[in-house]
């Protein structure tokens, strides 16, 4: 193997601390793992750099900081060195509607496209998941093309559907092999009522990819069955979890004597929050000195609040809304049992975080993480009786809780991102060997 490092142009949508789900966290974990391997160099592109990110080991490039009209432009990175690149873009930037029409009236070739910029000739992105998402994706793809024209790299790697059009555009410009990384599919997000527009973006991405990475066997099956991708082009790479900073957490911050059972995640169909509530009601019939906490927000939050009121358990069931990562850590420190009753979870990184805090976890068979975790109680998401049983057992039989707490901690500490990164690097190598 030669010593030349593989340069990877990676497209993501979010990066800590500006995250809404596990995607940003996973991206940071993977890139830091790749850095440690010292075989690759990653340029990580996101639509919007807020400025307070801690990229750590990755070169973070914000699409909102890319000048699209200058022959020469500088690109943002964290390591204080600037690279200067030449571009020759068929793009015509404009500032406002009026200018757009004046430009439009001039003669341009058919391929010329127009893009709205700010006064620094950069394209504005909102970041996140609000607003006109399709428009953001389209703009992202246009800027990706500019970036791909200037950067030197060997492989393109894209995380989830929002970045697929950008990655495809980069592939068209550069001709480099494309890896798409599927953290979740539309089927996981919505059940069977898929948004066909999103589905077709996902499918197009996977079809254009030279290789597809799935975060679990569960996701790999979905990719094969629902998207028609041949099994030979799909590999499973499990996520890991970054070690918690500081010393091993001890159980502190607990003021209430009551035991605490926690659900943490977006409150959406995919996460199965209603099953947690039903199980809570069952447990509360048997014992009163417990409290259930549902942390997070989502479109089902109000329905869940109503259901809790209806069951008459609102004095023992609490909602916290969306939590910052500090609050998440505080909550996990207070937690006695963590439950993830996901209906469909491609991977599910949160139980791993809970295990880092010595918390026994209950996870559903319908989650990718259950494929790699041994020391967790596994149930079917719909089996609220089994869930209630498991909660009750962990709360009342100390030996059981102690076992899952220490074994789980040990198990999760052995999961490392470098391991995942090694597999990913292997896939890059395979593609490059095929190409050469």
């Amino acid at each position, binding site marked *: 193997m030669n010593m030349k490092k593989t340069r990877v142009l990676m497209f993501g949508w979010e990066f800590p601390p500006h995250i809404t789900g596990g995607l940003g966290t996973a991206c940071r974990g993977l890139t830091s793992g790749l850095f440690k391997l010292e075989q690759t160099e990653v340029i990580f592109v996101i639509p919007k750099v807020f400025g307070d990110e801690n990229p750590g080991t990755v070169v973070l490039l914000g699409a909102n900081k890319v000048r699209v009209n200058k022959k020469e432009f500088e690109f943002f990175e964290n390591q204080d060195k600037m690279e200067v690149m030449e571009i020759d873009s068929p793009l015509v930037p404009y500032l406002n509607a009026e200018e757009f029409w004046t430009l439009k009236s001039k003669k341009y070739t058919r391929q010329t496209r127009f893009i709205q910029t700010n006064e620094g000739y950069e394209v504005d992105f909102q970041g996140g998941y609000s607003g006109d998402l399709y428009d953001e994706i389209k703009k992202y793809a246009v800027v990706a093309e500019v970036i791909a024209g200037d950067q030197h790299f060997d492989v393109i790697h894209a995380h989830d559907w929002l970045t697929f059009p950008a990655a495809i555009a980069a592939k068209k410009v550069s001709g480099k092999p494309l890896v798409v990384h599927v953290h979740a599919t539309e089927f996981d997000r919505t059940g069977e009522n898929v948004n066909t527009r999103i589905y077709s973006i996902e499918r197009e991405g996977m079809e254009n990819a030279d290789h597809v990475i799935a975060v679990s066997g569960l996701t790999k099956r979905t990719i094969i069955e629902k998207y028609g991708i041949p099994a030979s082009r799909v590999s499973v790479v499990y996520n890991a979890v970054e070690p918690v900073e500081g010393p091993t957490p001890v159980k502190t911050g607990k*003021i*209430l004597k009551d035991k605490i059972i926690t659900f943490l995640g977006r409150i959406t169909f995919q996460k199965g929050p209603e099953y947690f509530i039903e199980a809570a009601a069952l447990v509360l019939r048997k014992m009163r000195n417990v*409290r259930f*906490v549902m942390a997070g927000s989502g479109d089902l*939050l*109000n329905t869940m*609040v*109503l259901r*809790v*009121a*209806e069951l*008459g358990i*609102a*004095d023992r069931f*609490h*909602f*916290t*809304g969306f939590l910052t990562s500090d*609050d998440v850590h*505080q*909550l996990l420190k207070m937690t006695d049992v963590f439950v993830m009753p996901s209906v469909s979870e491609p991977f599910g990184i949160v139980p791993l975080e809970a295990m880092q805090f010595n918390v026994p976890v209950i996870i559903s068979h319908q989650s990718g993480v259950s494929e790699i975790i041994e020391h967790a109680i596994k149930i079917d998401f719909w089996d609220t009786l089994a869930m209630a049983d498991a909660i009750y057992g962990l709360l009342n039989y100390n030996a059981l809780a102690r076992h899952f707490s220490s074994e789980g901690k040990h198990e999760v500490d052995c999961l490392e991102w470098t391991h995942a990164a090694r597999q990913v690097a292997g896939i890059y190598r395979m593609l490059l060997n095929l190409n050469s």
Partner: protein
Amino acid sequence: MKSVCLYFQVHQPFRHRRYRFFDIGADHYYYDDYTNDAVLSKMATKCYLPANQLLLKLAKKLGSKLRVSFSFSGIVLDQLELYAPEVIHSFQKLAKTGCVEFVSETYSHSLASLANPEIFREQVNHNEERIFAIFGQKPRVFRNTEMIYSDQIGARVAEMGYDAILTEGARQVLGWKSPGFLYVNTINPRLKVLMRNFKLSDDISFRFSNQNWPEYPLSAEKFISWIEQMPWQEEMVNLFMSYETFGERQPKESGIFLFFEKLIENVALHPAMKLATPSEIIAEIQPVSAVSVPNPVSWADEERDLTAWQGNEMQVEAFRKLYQLADIVKLNTDPALLRDWDYLQASDHFFYMSTKHASDGEVHRHYNPFSSPYEAFINYMNVLSDFAFRLNKQNDNQLLNDEVMTLKKRLEEKELKIRELEADILSFKHSLKTKMKS
């Protein structure tokens, strides 16, 4: 001679701060001081003070022809003492003119009448004492929170010794009957029932500045002509409204104060009309019949029922969980806990959880510090959880104290016994010695 009965209600709740799950068991302060202070100060300068000023001016001018009545929740009196004591002073000045009758209500503006007769009675007594302490009047007439009334509630109020109650002249109760007559309670006919004329009352408090209302603009003359056109047999016109109508709900710029002044003046000086307080009305006017109200009515929303506070599962649950604590609260004497207990009962907390979306939903949103009813519910339940946590802890402490006391007592008894036995042994030894000697 038609009696026009002007009654105003003064109330503001103690709003809760954003109380998070993490605060439960850790932080026992529930109130949003900043907002409470800001709202009270705003009410004082926009409404209470200028409206009182106006009434004082009219009292000087009209003398004893000015008759108005007020009721205060204990909670608003507590807040006025904290944030705007000058308002209390100004009401006291008004009381001294002798033109004002003070009507009683529940201390917390609570829904206790629907939950627990014992707490209801305590709440009423508490408020009575407060009114007497501040204004030196013992109320003879009662008005329940939000005008909530049913035959049952009326009977309980009569038991407490009240002569009359004010309530809503709701359509579902009165039917073809008119609020222009005096009625009595069906269970205990000694209690007179004054029915609010909601049409005329709401013309002032809700519609006065509404430019889409066909009667806009409303002048005192026009309003009085409506009263003049009412059948001559009807002996009274009950105008009951929130005092905040003046200056807050209807802004000063709408001319509400001028209207109010003219209305009072013209009625007081009208040849066929006079102002009267509820007590004067029941002394002068004969009741025409009993009024049957099997299901509670209120003055809220289009429905005039309890759905503003009991309309969805969240409200029912929060209400149930609150009053489930009543028995443990009874065992408690900690003043801080009891004060929080009072403030937790304010009906406003339940009002914030309403999910009604009709035109009345507007009102719910306007006075709501929360962005959604769900948020209001979550916050309230967190506060309630902490309150229950403190109650139980206090209770445990008390039990522990009791236990320590009994053990101590037993120890003392044992000590005493030991001393007795020791003395016995001593005397025994002594007698033994003397025996040996002899």
